[in-house]
């Protein structure tokens, strides 16, 4: 122990300057930064796909001219954004950085496994880029059989291998988080004294660990079928293509919660900090995350209402899907309850978090439309669905990611980002997002199907509006890349706790030392003990 204390003063950023000290690090904070670099890269790769899709749709005939090219573009956009940005985004970056800090631990339970997960991710990314460069796939991110196994002309197997490997990276991260949260909590940190961010990552990790292997096996079966031209999903020999959809959505619907639950955690940290109030209904927020993770496993059939499943199973899946809305709504009400009569500060993290609440609510409520059997028959496979999940994934999750990035930026880098730029970007992203995706609700309602490179001329105005909004959105996403990078070199030095927030991560220095804490902290109070709560109690 004497050894550790002499080293505890060195910031993790200056503990070694060689390339080796980064690429072979087992420090969770450095691995988080490695992930930041990888994920930012893939965010912009996927973004280029989105840009070209919106460019194509500026004209009813499709500006790119080729349906095949368009199919490969939106498939690439989907695959990259889902598995190489949304699923890993918050857990592997902010999660890796913050889980040990919030637990009061020195590292995750399995630091070498953590590094391995990054290498798996990079390997998966390289395979995905290879598949992309040699021509990509035209199957959509959902890889439906028998298109994928027999008819698709793209590089299906390479793409599947990429997703397969990325899956194991995600399993490694989830496993590390669950075990760390069980075993490495600081003395005094009982389950109900844990920050909500940890709870939501715990719920996320349960899904990662239990759902991802199902996808892995399913994709292996598809790869087998494609390679040997015979397989489990092949109806010619008594297999069942619909079985693929069951297995795929058994992972991919819970995966939606992998993508959104960390966002709930982020917002639950930020809203109390910028309202100077204790989180309203802590236990409800916490157990709502768990409920979402559990019920999320039981709703996959709602992706198959028009696939010929039985009416009774469809009814059950519809009702269960409605049930997920309950814990989600509990969270939204609790955030609003936290802000009620709080001293609200509109700094950039809070603006992003407010954007999250509004956009997520829109995305969630429109989810009820498509969970309703009759409405879904009309809306499925239209732009309504596209708008719905982009409100949750992009409006919700990407906003939460940026909220988290700004909130913990001073802790991660030891520098303050320029506040005015942060606020401007948050507002530009919110406006650009709504301009891009709100018209798509109307388009879908009017019957414009998704995944086509051309459309009837009467949809042109709304599509041009959507593409125009996408331009604003793109500017909004490029801004943080600029000013956050700038702040790395020229930003003001951050104190240990620039927001006056609670949580163990704010008790150590910014940036934290390699050992995180000079002495192991002892937790006595519940989280979110903001001054307001104390003064009101004294009254």
């Amino acid at each position: 122990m004497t050894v550790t204390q002499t080293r505890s003063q060195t910031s993790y950023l200056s503990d070694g300057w060689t390339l080796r000290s980064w690429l072979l690090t087992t420090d969770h904070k450095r691995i988080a930064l490695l992930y930041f670099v990888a994920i930012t890269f893939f965010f912009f790769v996927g973004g280029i796909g989105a840009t070209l899709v919106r460019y194509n749709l500026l004209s009813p005939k499709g500006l790119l001219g080729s349906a095949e090219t368009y199919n490969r573009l939106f498939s690439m956009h989907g695959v990259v954004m889902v598995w190489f940005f949304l699923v890993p985004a918050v857990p592997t970056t902010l999660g890796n950085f913050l889980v040990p800090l919030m637990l009061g631990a020195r590292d995750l339970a399995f630091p070498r496994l953590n590094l391995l997960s990054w290498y798996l991710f990079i390997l998966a990314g390289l395979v995905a880029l290879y598949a992309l460069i040699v021509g990509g796939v035209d199957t959509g991110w959902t890889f439906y059989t028998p298109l994928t196994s027999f008819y698709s002309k793209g590089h299906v197997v390479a793409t599947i291998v990429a997703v397969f490997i990325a899956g194991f990276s995600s399993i490694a991260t989830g496993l590390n988080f669950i075990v760390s949260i069980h075993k490495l909590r600081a003395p005094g940190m009982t389950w109900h004294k844990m920050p909500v961010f940890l709870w939501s990552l715990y719920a996320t990790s349960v899904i990662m660990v239990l759902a991802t292997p199902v996808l892995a096996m399913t994709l292996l079966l598809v790869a087998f079928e494609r390679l040997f031209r015979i397989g489990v999903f092949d109806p010619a020999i008594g297999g069942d293509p619909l079985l693929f959809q069951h297995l795929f959505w058994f992972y991919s619907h819970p995966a939606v919660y992998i993508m959104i639950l960390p966002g709930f955690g982020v917002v639950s940290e930020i809203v109390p900090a910028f309202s100077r109030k204790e989180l309203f209904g802590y236990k409800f927020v916490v157990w709502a995350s768990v409920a979402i993770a559990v019920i999320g496993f039981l709703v996959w059939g709602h992706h198959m209402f028009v696939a010929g499943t039985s009416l009774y199973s469809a009814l059950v899946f519809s009702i269960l899907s409605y049930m997920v809305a309950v814990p989600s709504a509990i969270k939204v009400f609790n955030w609003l309850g936290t802000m009620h009569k709080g001293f609200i500060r509109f700094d950039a993290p809070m603006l992003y978090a407010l954007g999250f609440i509004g956009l997520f609510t829109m995305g969630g409520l429109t989810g009820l439309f498509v969970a309703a059997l009759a409405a879904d028959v009309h809306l499925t496979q239209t732009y309504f669905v596209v708008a719905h999940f982009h409100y949750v994934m992009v409006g919700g999750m990407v906003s939460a990611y940026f909220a988290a990035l700004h909130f913990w930026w001073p802790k991660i880098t030891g520098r303050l980002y320029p506040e005015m730029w942060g606020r401007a970007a948050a507002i530009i992203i919110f406006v650009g997002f709504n301009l891009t995706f709100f018209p798509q609700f109307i388009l879908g309602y009017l019957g414009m199907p998704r995944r086509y490179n051309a459309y009837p001329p009467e949809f042109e105005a709304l599509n041009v509006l959507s593409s125009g909004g996408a331009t604003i959105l793109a500017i909004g996403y490029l801004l943080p890349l600029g000013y956050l990078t700038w702040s790395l070199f020229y930003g003001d030095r951050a104190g240990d706790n620039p927001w006056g927030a609670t949580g163990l991560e704010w008790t150590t220095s910014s940036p934290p030392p390699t050992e995180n804490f000079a002495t192991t902290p002892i937790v006595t109070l519940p989280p979110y003990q903001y001054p307001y709560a104390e003064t009101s109690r004294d009254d």
Partner: protein
Amino acid sequence: MTEAVDGHEFQYSTARHQAETAVSGMWLFLATEMMFFGPLFLAWIYCRHAGPTAFDAGAKQTDLFIGTLNTALLITSSLAYSFGVFFIEAGRRRAMIQCLIIAWLLGGAFMLLKFAVEWPLDFEKGLFPGADFALAPPDRNGAQLFFVFYFFTTAIHGLHVIVGLGLIAWVVLRAREFTASRHTPILVVGLYWSFVDMVWIILYPLIYLIGRGA
């Protein structure tokens, strides 16, 4: 920067804390593995349910003798490994090493029988699905589906056995480090080896028994 402090990594309070954590990590990993094999078993049972006659016609072509022998080998291997765990807990390192070597050899024998004897026999009989498949209609299609499952699943299980054999070799090579109080890797590898066993215990009836009962 996780060099050992007092025999454990710096995020743990004691060596015992570290050992417990490693064991829970492996249990959770096995839960993942269960969900990995789960869809395969589900698909298998579902497809058999849809076309049982042809499935059973396929199953009757499998080699019951080798399958049964292999089951015995793998279970005995796990038994030997478990004795190894008892021996190291009693501080008898030498006996532990002998048990683990026996476990390794039995696992190796399983692999040889499965992939150097049984698979070639299956190929000779024309049981690999495709244009040259041996069985004639009406059972031809469903039996091919059975053999898709057969070859796919035994390959995936075989990969797990290879990983298990690698892990056993790794603990045997590190055997000098282990004592009655410190032998976590032996426990962790043992959990994995038993899991590989249990997957086979589900596969054995699926491949060899159910089709013959009908």
